[in-house]
């Protein structure tokens, strides 16, 4: 084959047969999986993080049925975090696809669930760190005016903890976005695989892969930008 010009390659890679659809459809899938997985991850993370903190903070007075339930929940949560963080996301994805949800017809569903559960473990630790970083005087002050543990948590501790762990949370969001690229292993046509399909069709590696890389980069920069705005707004109470 004669050497092609960059322009010809571009036309062949993206325009012929509307191949750019592989990229845009892939991007759509990547975003759907990332956002839904993040939502699931945050929900799991908040619950697991709070259970772990509640257990650690109330160690002194864990009595009665409530105490036993909290102990059991704490053990379950610890086991969950250990297993999820201790195994590769790709292995989890393959197990989910080929073993647990073998009858599921939706690859997106498998991916969302896998990454949601995976992300939850990391988010839980992020939240736990955020909650633990808040001075214990804040909890004591809340309790001393008669607020319950839950009321103090939701009105005082969690808003501060959320602000404290926002950078780490965004980190997790970015990692998640990029990690969904392994979904190609179960044949889900997300962004990376979209680029790879073009490479397989046109035998040009550079442009499709660069395009994919550029899109990931752009998305991460957009996320970072919005995170900056959010942080500045949350910093209002720190003005001296």
């Amino acid at each position, binding site marked *: 084959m004669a050497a092609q010009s960059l322009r010809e390659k571009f036309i062949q890679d993206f325009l012929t047969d509307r191949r750019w659809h592989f990229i845009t459809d892939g991007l759509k899938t990547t975003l759907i999986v990332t956002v839904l997985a993040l939502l699931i991850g945050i929900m799991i993370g908040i619950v697991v993080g709070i259970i772990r903190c509640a257990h650690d903070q109330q160690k*002194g*007075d864990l*009595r*009665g049925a409530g105490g036993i339930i909290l102990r059991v929940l704490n053990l379950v949560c610890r086991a969950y975090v250990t297993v999820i963080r201790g195994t590769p996301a790709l292995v989890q994805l393959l197990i989910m696809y080929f073993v647990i949800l073998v009858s599921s017809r939706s690859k997106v569903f498998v991916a969302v669930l896998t990454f949601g559960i995976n992300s939850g473990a990391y988010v839980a630790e992020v939240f736990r760190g955020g909650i633990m970083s808040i*001075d214990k*005087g*804040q909890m*004591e*002050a*809340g*309790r*001393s*005016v*008669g*607020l*319950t543990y839950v*009321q103090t948590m939701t*009105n*005082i501790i969690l*808003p*501060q903890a959320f*602000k404290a762990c926002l950078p780490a949370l965004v980190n997790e969001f970015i990692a998640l976005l990029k990690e969904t690229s392994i979904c190609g292993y179960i044949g889900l046509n997300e962004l990376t695989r979209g680029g790879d399909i073009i490479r397989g069709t046109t035998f040009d590696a550079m442009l499709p892969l660069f395009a994919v890389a550029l899109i990931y980069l752009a998305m991460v920069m957009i996320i970072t930008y919005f995170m900056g705005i959010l942080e500045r707004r949350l910093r*209002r*109470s*720190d*003005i*001296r």
Partner: protein
Amino acid sequence: MISVKGLRKDFGDVSVLRGIDYEISKGEKIVIIGPSGSGKSTFLRCLNLLERPTAGQIFLDGEEITNPKTDINKVRQKMGMVFQHFNLFSNLSILDNITLAPVKLKLMTKDEAQQRAFELLDRVGLRDKAGAYPAQLSGGQKQRIAIVRSLAMNPEVMLFDEPTSALDPEMVGEVLSVMKELAEDGMTMAVVTHEMAFAREVGTRVLFIDEGVIKEENEPGEFFGNPKSERLKDFLSKVL
């Protein structure tokens, strides 16, 4: 009003309180002094169960608050507490710091709580700080707000845990004068402090706690003028 019987508190192997019996009547101003590590703060923190006693009983208006069946949140609504490090809710404005508990606990409507907050802010001369955040205030201002936050719950008793120990010397006076006013209004108070002049002037009884027991207890004149135990004489010779 408050009755303490055989109060003991252990932290692991360390016995901090080794049996305290005491009665506080309505309107009394109890000042608790003693060397650091003597258990005086722990004693105060046991009174509203921020520390769970290892043994013994505490009664408030005849109700045993150490009974696990007692709703401790209800009890704490009647006992204000002021901390050494203020512990203002750093994510909330001053006004919200004051109104949070009365509103969340449905004791007042938002309007009533705000009206009460402004009355109290006027009393301590900080009305103009209502919209500020805790980080914008000086130590003395923070502590006056902390007192106001407790008063907003209309407590029957106020507990002060070294309220001036973290303040710059020039700010001690403004906090003590608020406390004096409160005492003149007839509030029942228990104050852990190193301010001997305050103890002498405002206290109705002074307690000397050392090694986890009340070593000596008297009205201020006798207490400072004619100490009985060698340990107290020694202590007073160092602090006066």
